[in-house]
C-alpha cells in the first residue's frame, strides 16, 4: 500500500472513476446488443435506427425545435430521477424499494385528486403526493421492521393495490370520450407547476417547469445527507451492518421506517413532477403499473448508486427512451429503447464484476511491481 504506483493506476483505482468507466461500458454493450437486435429485425435500416435513438431530439434540423424536444426529454427525466433517488436512498439503508413504482402511483393519484377534484393549488398537490407516497413507504417500513416482511414482497403487492385504488379514485374526473383524466389546464390552472420563465429557454415548451431544477436539487441534497450528516451515517450503518447499528444504540427499526418514508415521498413527488406539468394524463383503465418506478432501478444502478451519477444516468435512459419514439414504427417497435435499457439493467450487475476485476488486476500489477523491486534488492 505504501507506493501508490503509477499515476494511471491510482487514477483507475478511484471508486468514482471506476463507476463511470463501468457505466460507460454497460451503455456501450447495451447499445451493441440493441443494434444486433435491430439488425435481426431488419438489417437495412439498423444503423440509421440506432443513430436515430441516440440522436433523439437532435434529429430536428432547427435549434429551436431541438431545444423544445430536449425540454420534453427533461420533463420525463425529472420524475425518473426522483424514482431512481427513491430506490437509491433506500438501497443505502439495505432496502430494495421495488415499491417505488407503487409509491409513484400513489403520488400520481394524490396529486391529480387534489388538482382535479379538490381544485387545490400546485404546492398543496405536491405536498399531497409527498404524503401519499410516504404513507405507501411507511406501510412497507412498518411491515419490515416489526413483522420482518420482505420489503420486495410487500412493495410489489402495494404496487397493485395502489394502481387499482388510483384508477378508482380518479374515475370521476376522466374525460367523457377517453379513459384519460381531464386536462389540468382546463379545470384548475393554478395546479400546474410554475415555470418561472424556464420555458423560454426551451423554445416555449410549456411543460418545462421548476420540476426539473427541483429534481436536480433533491439529488444534491440527498448526496449531502448521505455523506455529511448524522442521519446519513446512521442510515448507511443500518444498511450495511444492522447488528452493529443496533449494538451502537441506533434505533434501527425507526431508521428503516423513516428511510422508506423518505423513499416513498421521493417517488410520490416524482409522479407530481410529471402529472402536474400536464404533459401526461392518467389513464383510469390502465392495468399495468407505470414503468417509471422500475426504470428508476436501472437509472440508480447505472448511476453507480450515487445521487450525482444518477442524474446523468436518468437523463441517459430517458434520452434513449425518447429517441426510440422517432423510429420508423412500420419496421421497428419503439420498445427497442426499453429493450436497450433492459440490457443495461442486466449489465448493471456486471458493473460490480467489472470493479472487482479491475481492482484485482490493479492489485496484481502492484504486487508484481513490488516483487520485482524486492527481487532487485536481493
Amino acid at each position, binding site marked *: 500500500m505504501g507506493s501508490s504506483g503509477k499515476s494511471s493506476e491510482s487514477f483507475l483505482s478511484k471508486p468514482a472513476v471506476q463507476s463511470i468507466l463501468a457505466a460507460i461500458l454497460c451503455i456501450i454493450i447495451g447499445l451493441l446488443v440493441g443494434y444486433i437486435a435491430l439488425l435481426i429485425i431488419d438489417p437495412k435500416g439498423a444503423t440509421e435506427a440506432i443513430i436515430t435513438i441516440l440522436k433523439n431530439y437532435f434529429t430536428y434540423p432547427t435549434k429551436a425545435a431541438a431545444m423544445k424536444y430536449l425540454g420534453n426529454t427533461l420533463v420525463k427525466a425529472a420524475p425518473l430521477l426522483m424514482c431512481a433517488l427513491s430506490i437509491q436512498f433506500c438501497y443505502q439503508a439495505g432496502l430494495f424499494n421495488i415499491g417505488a413504482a407503487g409509491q409513484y402511483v400513489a403520488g400520481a393519484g394524490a396529486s391529480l385528486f387534489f388538482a382535479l377534484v379538490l381544485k387545490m393549488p400546485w404546492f398543496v398537490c405536491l405536498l399531497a403526493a409527498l404524503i401519499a407516497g410516504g404513507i405507501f413507504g411507511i406501510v412497507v417500513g412498518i411491515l419490515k421492521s416489526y413483522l420482518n416482511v420482505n420489503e420486495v414482497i410487500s412493495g410489489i403487492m402495494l404496487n397493485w393495490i395502489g394502481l387499482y385504488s388510483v384508477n378508482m379514485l380518479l374515475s370521476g374526473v376522466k374525460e367523457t370520450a377517453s379513459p384519460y383524466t381531464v386536462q389540468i389546464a382546463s379545470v384548475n390552472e393554478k395546479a400546474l407547476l410554475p415555470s418561472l420563465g424556464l420555458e423560454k429557454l426551451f423554445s416555449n415548451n410549456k411543460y418545462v417547469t421548476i420540476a426539473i431544477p427541483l429534481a436536480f436539487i433533491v439529488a444534491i441534497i440527498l448526496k449531502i445527507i448521505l455523506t455529511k450528516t448524522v442521519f446519513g451515517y446512521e442510515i448507511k*450503518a443500518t444498511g450495511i*451492518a444492522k447488528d*452493529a447499528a443496533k*449494538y451502537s*444504540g441506533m434505533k434501527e427499526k425507526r431508521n428503516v421506517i423513516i428511510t422508506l418514508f423518505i423513499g416513498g415521498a421521493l417517488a410520490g413527488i416524482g409522479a407530481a413532477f410529471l402529472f402536474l406539468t400536464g404533459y401526461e394524463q392518467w389513464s383510469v383503465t390502465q392495468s399495468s403499473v407505470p414503468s417509471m418506478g422500475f426504470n428508476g432501478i436501472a437509472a440508480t444502478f447505472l448511476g453507480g448508486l450515487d445521487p450525482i451519477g444518477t442524474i446523468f444516468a436518468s437523463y441517459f435512459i430517458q434520452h434513449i427512451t425518447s429517441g426510440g419514439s422517432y423510429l420508423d414504427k412500420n419496421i421497428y417497435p419503439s420498445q427497442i429503447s426499453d429493450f436497450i435499457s433492459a440490457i443495461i439493467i442486466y449489465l448493471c450487475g456486471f458493473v460490480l464484476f467489472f470493479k472487482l476485476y479491475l481492482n484485482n488486476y490493479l492489485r496484481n500489477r502492484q*504486487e508484481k511491481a513490488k516483487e520485482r523491486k524486492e527481487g532487485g534488492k536481493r
Partner: protein
Amino acid sequence: MAENSNSEYAIEMLNITKRFPGIVANDNVTIQLKKGEIHALLGENGAGKSTLMSVLFGLYQAEEGIIKKDGKEVKINNPNDANDLGIGMVHQHFKLVQCFTVLDNIILGVESTKHGILQKEEAKKKVLELSEKYGLKVDPDAKIEDITVGMQQRTEILKMLYRDNEILIFDEPTAVLTPAEIDELMEIMRNLAKEGKSILFISHKLAEIMAVADRCSVLRRGKYIGTVNIADTDQNELSRMMVGRDVQLVATKEDKEPGDVILHVVNMTVPSKLHHNNAVKNVSFDVRSGEIVCIAGIDGNGQTELVYGLSGLENCTTGKITLSGKDITHASIRERSTSGMSHIPEDRHKHGLVMDYSLAYNLVLQRYFEPEFSTKSGFLKKAAINSYADKLIEQYDIRSGQGAPTIARSMSGGNQQKAIIAREIDKNPDLLIAVQPTRGLDVGAIEYIHKQLIAQRDAGHAVLLVSLELEEVMSISDRILVMYEGEIVGEFDPKVTTPEELGLYMAGAKRKEVTA
C-alpha cells in the same frame, strides 16, 4: 494398506506454496508426518494452517510442491481423493446430523446394504468393536442432539475409523471441551497413535501440544518456521517460534481491594432464541470497581445471552439491573452506553464494527452523536472525527493500511479488535464488559488486550470478562463465576481454585449456592 511400503512417512507435503490474490497463504511449507506419531501443527490465526489442511484435503490445489503418501507422489484433486487415500478429519465445528443417531451418523455415506435395505446390525457390530479397541465410549443408538459435545467428538473420530482412515487430522479439537474431556481426548489420541494411526493435531494451545504431541511444526504468516521434537523443547521456545519474539504468557497484576458496587444484577432471566427454555435463569451477581470478574463456562451455557441482557441487545423477562446506582433494567442500548457501560462484543464482525465503514467512522460508533462530533443541525464534524481517530490510532497502536480512512474490513483481526477496545475504553466507562476479547487473536495481541483490561481495573473501573479460555480466566480475573446451563453454579477465587475444580463445575458435575 501401508504395510507394503518402506517409507518412514505416512504423508509428506513437500514445498507447498499456495497463493491467493494479495497474499501467499503457504510459502514453501513442508510437513512430514511419520507413521504412528502425533504431529502438532502450531501457528497463530492466519498463519496458514487451515489452507495447508485444505490443500491436503483436496479443497485447494497448491501452485507449487508435491504431496507424497507412503513415499509415492499422489494427486489430491478433491475430498473424495483424500478419503480414498485414508485421510480423515475432525472439523472444529462437527459435521453431524443432529436428529440422527450416533450409528446413523457414522455410516452416513458408506452404508452397507443388501437388496437396498440397510444392514445396520453389521455396522453396529463394527462400531462397537472400534469403540472397544480405541476406548471411544459412545452409545450408538443415542441421538446426536441428546449427547454431550465430548461424545459428539468421539462420534466424529469413529466416523474416520469406520472408513479405515490411517491419517487423522484434528482441527482445534479442544476448543469446545471441558478440562476433563480434554484429558480424555488426549488419552484417545495416544491410543490411536499406539495402534498405528498417524495424527495431525492442529492447535494454538501450547500446553496441549506439549502434553500429547511427539513433534511439532510451526507456521508463521504462511512461512514454515521449523519442526521440533517436543521432548527437546519447551513452551517458551514454541511461542517464540510461533510469534517471532518473546511473549509474556501469563499476565501479571498487583493485588487490589475492590471498591463500590458498580454493576448489581438481581434475579435476571433472559429468554433463549434457540429453544423455549430461558438461556439465563434467575442470575444474581455484583461487579465492583477495581476488580475483574470473570464468567467462565463452556460455550453455549448462557454467557452470550447474559451479556445481551446486560447490554440491552435482548430484553430480560425478569430481574433488575443497576449500573452505578441507576436502574437500567428497561433502558435502551444507547442509554446504557451513555450511562457508563462499554461493551466489547463477542462477534466483532457482526456487532463490533461496521465493516464497510472507515476506521475513523468506526471509532466514533458509540459517540458520533455527541456535540464533539456532530453539530446541532445534524451534520458530522469530519475534521473532529478524523483527529480523534488519529489520536486513538496512535494511543492504542492500531495498525492499518492508510490510517483513519482505512476500511475496517481490510484490517487484520487483531487490529480490528484493538480498534473496538480503543473505542470502548476511551469512553472511560464505569463498567467494561468484554466478551471473549482475545478469541482468534495471536499471542502478541492477547498480551496487549490483557494489559488493557488490567489497566482498566487498576484505574478503578469495573470489568466483567466472559471467557471460554480457562488459562485466561485463571490469569487475569479477581473473582470467577462459573455458568452452567444458564445459572451461576459457583464463585471462586482464582488464587485458591484449580482448572480441574472449575472444570467440574463447568461440566455441571458439581454446584454450590452463590451469595450475591
